[in-house]
């Protein structure tokens, strides 16, 4: 895939507002805060209920999942429906791409079906960027996870969950434990935590599951979980990405749990009110003990619920920005016409 992965401006329109949501990289703090604040407005503060609203009525959103997903796909669909959009989810296993149709032909055909937004998950890093570079100007692209590159909506729902429980992020010490090397979620989380100026970001795991220079991402690396969890406010556990490992990077799952699994004893090293997060799917007994996953400090299931509101927020912000841009352009055009008439 030829798309440039570091093209942050591709996702902003000429007014500097979000047009496509491809990666956290290159976004400003105000973009992220707008998403978090808007997500707040979809949730009833007393009941945590997320009500259906009519703002995307008449818009068509297509979910293209080229890679399996349960949580992300379902929460995207629910979010789209709660915004009253028309939703089509493509079953890729039986689709034309299996019959040899190129990605671009698929895209143009779906666009001809009057899609206003594509939500894309693909095993290839850069797939969402590639789509964003080729869609018509009025069509928007959301990245639901591309290869090992980015999973920005997951990162935003994690930021939302942290803020809901712990308040402003800039005061917090956050530890991310597990397979950092293969995780697009972790990349996006670290970028979001940095933009929101978290006090300290730690990554914990075996060297074989770390990038060569984790410090380059602005994080502190610990190969000892007990040392790394000391006094943190937030613990984010990450799944072992077995499907992305090309060689044996850990001796065994049992060994991994022994060295890096989150047990009640290790959790006790963090602050007493620390929260435990996991983007799912969780592997009980591999990276997390059941007692912790189901315990009082776990907010894993709330992450899933908040994922609906955060995805609703990003989609409505994108459509709102498009509306404001169109309004701005028509005002500019009217102004130019006026000037021309005056000159004449």
């Amino acid at each position, binding site marked *: 895939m030829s798309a440039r992965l570091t093209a942050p401006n591709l996702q902003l329109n000429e007014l500097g507002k979000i047009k496509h949501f491809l990666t956290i990289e290159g976004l400003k703090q105000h973009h992220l805060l*707008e998403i978090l*604040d*808007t997500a*707040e*407005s*979809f*949730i*009833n*503060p*007393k009941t945590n209920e997320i*009500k*259906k*609203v*009519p*703002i995307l009525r008449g818009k068509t959103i297509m979910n293209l999942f080229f890679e399996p997903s349960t949580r992300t796909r379902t929460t995207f669909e629910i979010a789209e429906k709660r915004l009253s959009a028309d939703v089509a989810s493509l079953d890729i296993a039986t689709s034309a791409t299996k019959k040899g149709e190129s990605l671009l032909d698929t895209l143009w055909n779906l666009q001809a079906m009057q899609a206003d937004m594509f939500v894309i998950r693909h095993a290839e890093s850069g797939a969402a960027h590639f789509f964003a570079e080729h869609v018509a100007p009025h069509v928007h692209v959301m990245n639901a996870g591309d290869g090992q590159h980015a999973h920005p909506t997951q990162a935003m729902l994690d930021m939302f969950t942290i803020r809901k429980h712990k308040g402003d992020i800039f005061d917090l010490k956050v530890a991310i434990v597990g397979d950092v090397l293969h995780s697009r979620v972790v990349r996006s989380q670290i970028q979001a935590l940095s933009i929101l100026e978290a006090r300290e970001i730690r990554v914990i795991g075996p060297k074989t599951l770390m990038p060569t220079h984790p410090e380059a991402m602005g994080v502190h690396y610990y190969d000892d979980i007990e040392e790394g969890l000391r006094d943190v406010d937030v613990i984010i556990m990450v799944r072992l990405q077995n499907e992305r490992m090309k060689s044996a990077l850990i001796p065994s799952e049992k060994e991994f749990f022994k060295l890096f699994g989150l047990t009640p004893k290790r959790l006790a090293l963090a602050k007493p009110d620390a929260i435990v997060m996991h983007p799912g799917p969780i592997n009980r007994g591999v990276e997390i003990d059941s007692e912790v996953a189901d315990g009082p400090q776990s907010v894993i299931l709330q992450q899933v619920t908040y994922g609906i509101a955060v995805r609703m927020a990003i989609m*409505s*912000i994108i*459509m*709102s*920005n*498009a*509306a*404001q841009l*169109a*309004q701005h352009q028509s005002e500019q055009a009217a102004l130019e016409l006026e000037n021309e008439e005056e000159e004449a």
Partner: protein
Amino acid sequence: MSQLNIDVNALIEQMGNTLRTMPIMDRSPRMIGIRTAGVWVAQQLHDQLQLPDALGVIDINFYRDDFSKVGINPTVMPSDIPWEIEDQHIILVDDVLYTGRTIRAALNEIFDYGRPASVTLVTLLDRKGCRELPFQADVIGMSIECNKTLKVSGPDPLTVSLTDPEEDSV
């Protein structure tokens, strides 16, 4: 500049007195205020009438009909109706009835919660002659001409100032 300050508290008290004489008061009504200034008016009415159920609050920003032109209003907040709408008699309160579009949005939102038995519309100020949709209020604090410039501030104290732009320009 001609500016008229209105005694809002007296108007609201008079609106409450009017409501008391209406049949809906015998039907255990529940009250909803439209954010932002409608809630301020509703809160005073709610206190005055001593309604037993908490005041409901709706934010109609997600129900506006101009989303495709103006996008999201950044001040939007969640609606909070802490009881069932179904089969209830609702008193819907806003500060100003103008084009009628806000009331259209509010009714749509209310019907998304359930089917009320009835809705009685109460407005502090009714801007006559500038309706774009066919709505009329059941209880009106005061009617004003469409060309007046109007500013409602609050919640404490709740004030309304009216200026006459035509006189203003003289």
